[in-house]
């Protein structure tokens, strides 16, 4: 590793050693992957979506492979926020990787309560999931209108001791207005995109493959959509943007940063190649070096559109 290249990135006051963060829902609570990857080499981990109380999740099948992607309907299976703090966070705090608690609720009050509980914990930031397509109540409903985003962000922000990241859904017609609403209501950062609502069909059974019928699409198939939305959102707000959606290589990561992302999240690609985060970190460094850059700020948002 070259000493000249600075890979650190600052997200709302939290200094990440590098811009590669593991996306919520794809990395559990880090332990499983720690057998394959040195978690110290990863900038951050956004943990499995947490709810106020334990959630069992949806019936299986919960996954379907689609062209260049996957469709999932896990339905936020998790042990609940307090169990996470007690049982899982101490393990993660053995590493220098930054920990983002991803929270999802059925009501604004639930989000506020979780933010308050996490305030006394050692998590570095809170990512508010208002965009999960796999739960019937709450969650996505808050994330699809500027008014909904504004209402929930301003309420939860009051309870946050850590920076608040609002994770946006792509299932909207105008991402800019949603991003602006989040910023206006006090979000410290926005992350996008969550999965895109989709359907996969078993033609022999004439039934959906997923027990929950619809699921969230992720993987390389969504990358062009995610890139466009990250570009639009990053140019609509002044707060930092974390970009994600189909990132499977360091080249993908560079594209997202050029589009305006201060950090990126890797999700589905972890299932295919568990050491992909380290490969991406190394690739970003080599890219910066070969282009004569010394830090990430020299590429973040530097995409020049054609005339």
């Amino acid at each position: 590793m070259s000493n000249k290249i600075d890979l650190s990135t600052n997200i709302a006051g939290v200094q990440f050693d590098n811009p590669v963060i593991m996306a919520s829902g794809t990395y559990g609570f880090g332990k499983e992957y720690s057998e394959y990857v040195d978690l110290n080499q990863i900038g951050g981990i956004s943990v499995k979506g947490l709810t106020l109380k334990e959630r069992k999740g949806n019936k299986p099948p919960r996954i379907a492979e689609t062209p260049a992607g996957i469709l999932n309907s896990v339905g936020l299976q998790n042990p609940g926020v307090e169990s996470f703090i007690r049982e899982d966070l101490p393990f993660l705090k053995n590493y220098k990787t930054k920990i983002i608690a991803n929270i999802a609720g059925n009501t604004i009050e639930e989000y506020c309560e979780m933010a308050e509980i996490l305030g006394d914990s050692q998590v570095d930031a809170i990512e508010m999931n208002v965009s999960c397509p796999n739960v019937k109540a709450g969650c996505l409903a808050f994330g699809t209108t500027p008014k909904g985003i504004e209402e929930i962000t301003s309420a939860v922000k009051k309870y946050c001791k850590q920076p608040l990241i609002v994770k946006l859904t792509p299932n909207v017609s105008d991402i800019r207005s949603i991003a602006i609403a989040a910023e206006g209501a006090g979000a410290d950062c926005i992350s996008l995109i969550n999965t895109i609502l989709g359907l996969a069909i078993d033609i022999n059974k004439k039934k959906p493959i997923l027990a929950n019928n619809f699921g969230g699409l992720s993987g390389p198939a969504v990358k062009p959509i995610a890139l466009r939305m990250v570009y639009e959102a990053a140019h609509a707000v002044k707060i930092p943007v974390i970009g994600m959606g189909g990132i499977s290589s360091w080249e993908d990561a560079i594209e997202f940063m050029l589009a305006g992302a201060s950090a990126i999240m890797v999700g589905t690609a972890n299932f295919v190649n568990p050491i992909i985060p380290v490969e991406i970190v190394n690739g970003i460094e080599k890219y910066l070096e070969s282009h004569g850059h010394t830090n990430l700020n020299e590429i973040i948002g530097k995409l020049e559109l054609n005339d």
Partner: protein
Amino acid sequence: MGNILNEQIVNTKMLCKDVFKMTISSEYVASNAKPGQFVNIRCGGLDAMLRRPISICDVDKSQNTFDIVIQVKGRGTEKLCSMCQGKVDIMAPLGNSFMIDDKHENICVVGGGIGTFPLLYLLKCSQAANKTALLGFRNKESVVLEDKFRAAAGNVEIATDDGSYGKKAFVTELLEEKIKSQKPDIIYTCGPAIMMQKVSAIAEKNKIPCQVSMEQRMGCGIGACLVCACKTKNGNNWEFSHVCKDGPVFWSTEVCWD
């Protein structure tokens, strides 16, 4: 613990229509694999991105190789079966394993179709005095690896759905007959869910401990993504366990079959 490995394919052989045996050279897997565990194997390409979980069928420690048997079901398995040489990217060995207890003198495995394969290595590893394999296939053409099962178990009985080979029966009927003549100390089963449910019910009725190897669509294969849910009992309640990490082997009494 599982490892990410890039291993050499020794050969790939067609056993019957759409079923292939792949032999892979791997000192790590040959030394560490336990019966019931699986490998998560990368097919490659954007049209079959996810790794495929495939049971370990057999291990040859003297050659440092292991076998997997793959049934062509879609794009990924089709791609895998076409790989005859070169290297494969695998995560292995993964999952828990069948419990082998030296106190068990009579063991019985009950396999259906492609589910028969992980039971072969189990039979080879068991030191039981009496080993029975009850295997069910669709028809004569789909009966494979019979010679290997005969070498691993003293007693092998085969049932086919259409009676074109062995006995025209369901493999569960063979089990009921077996129990009448000699009650096994433990039953191990792998195959279609409906078959394993029936085997579990027979085992429970006869008060025989029974282990089942469950199957579910997987994402990561190591317990992080939580997609391969399997409903299991938890006291008076239930929970979703995960086939890749908590399984694939469960006690039959743990599983909620509804």
